[in-house]
């Protein structure tokens, strides 16, 4: 089954030459996740291996409609292809976690919480790419698309936090736990709240907003991988 994942790595690299290969990469990763789901009998979104695959597939899939709007901008597709290949390689480094889920994780609230979180992380990543493109060659389309990607991601991330809070209340009797993951999640949410409000001010529009969009993805990566690997938390990932 890992062959599907390894093939998706190749597909993302080939997408550097023919952009249609990105579709193949997404389909291979979705097929891999479906196989794992049927094998495990649960949503395969526990631990770094599965979550990185899901995050990569989402980022590549979300880049497709945005890529169509960025007609003629090869750099966008290239950055997405290279980063998708790199994240797939990272996923291959980690062992898949095949153990059964503890009873508290077997709930709609947990599954939706995780799915929405990684979808939003992926969109924040796409937004960061637009930020980079804007800095390279300032054009209002890249900045507008960055804003749109952030707005949708922010909505998904907020929903993920709400679903996580409901799940935590049902599972642990509280909707808030004092752990670094919760705190970094709030940092991320406040940071993008800042971005969305700052953009309303003339001074922040354009370059500063693009920089914020890129910095935000740094916060996303630290919240996702940094906190989970370096700090003690209620979240395994």
């Amino acid at each position, binding site marked *: 089954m890992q062959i599907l994942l390894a093939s998706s790595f190749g597909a993302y690299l080939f997408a550097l030459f023919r952009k249609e290969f990105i579709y193949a990469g997404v389909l291979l990763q979705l097929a891999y996740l479906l196989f794992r789901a049927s094998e495990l009998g649960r949503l395969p979104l526990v631990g770094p291996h599965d979550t990185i695959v899901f995050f990569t597939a989402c980022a590549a899939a979300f880049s497709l409609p945005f890529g169509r709007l960025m007609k003629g901008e090869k750099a966008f597709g290239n950055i997405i292809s290279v980063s998708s290949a790199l994240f797939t390689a990272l996923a291959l480094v980690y062992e898949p976690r095949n153990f059964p889920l503890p009873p508290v994780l077997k709930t709609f609230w947990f599954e939706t919480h995780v799915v929405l979180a990684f979808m939003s992380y992926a969109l924040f990543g796409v937004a960061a790419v637009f930020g980079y493109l804007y800095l390279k060659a300032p054009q209002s389309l890249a900045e507008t698309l960055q804003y749109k990607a952030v*707005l949708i991601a922010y909505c998904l991330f907020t929903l993920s936090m709400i679903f996580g809070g409901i799940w935590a209340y*049902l599972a642990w009797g509280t909707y808030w736990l004092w752990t670094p993951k919760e705190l970094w999640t709030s940092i991320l949410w406040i940071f993008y709240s800042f971005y969305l*409000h700052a953009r309303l001010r003339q001074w922040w529009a354009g370059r500063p907003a693009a920089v914020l969009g890129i910095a935000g993805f740094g916060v996303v990566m630290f919240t996702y991988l940094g906190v989970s690997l370096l700090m003690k938390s209620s979240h395994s990932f």
Partner: protein
Amino acid sequence: MNPLKKIYQILLSLNTSLWLLLIITALFIAGAFIMPDNPGFGSIDIPLFDWLKRQNLESVWWLWGTIGVLSLLSVNTLFCSIDSIIKKRRVTHWLLLISPQVIHTGFLFMLLAHLLGASGSYHGEAAVAEGSAVKLSGGDILAIKNIEIETDDSGYLSGWGVDIEYNHSGNFTESARISPNSPFIYKDLNIMVKDVQAYPEAALLQVSRDPGAVWALAGSILFTLGILTLIALRMKMEKT
């Protein structure tokens, strides 16, 4: 300029919101690195404000700071929302005008939830054997009638069901079944099973009270409605 008017204008400014959001981000980042050095954060079982007063300022200054800045942000949010409604009521479509204010109201409800929780929440745990009972503060009695433990083919714990009886100060008794992610909720009280033991059959019960939970849920619903409406309106405006 009149100092009161100056304060009013500062509280009405979007720049103030931006500064406050930046300060909260900085305080939370500091807290994320300081917090792991104080293991007490993992076992707060009394109202947060009472707990904070007992801690060394070194490990909780960032949280006191955050509470202060969040208070200012609440006032700022309220002022900005009211001002926006007054100024734009004639020039903007009412849904476009109201959606951001619904989001802001949701945010304020969530802050209120945390404030209420920090002032009056608690939780306690007790291991209770099947067939026995515990008396809770306030005179209520919680009894465990039956414990069922489920394991899968590999012997892993796959679920449990605990039948309880909750007696309200000797007045009336309610029966319920608690299982993972399905606690017994009565008003702002949440009774759940944290763990179960097969031999002898016992359950680790957690009783927690959070007066802010309902406000958090209300705030979440408002925030979601507001942000979804805003996105839908933006999409509709782009199409036309």
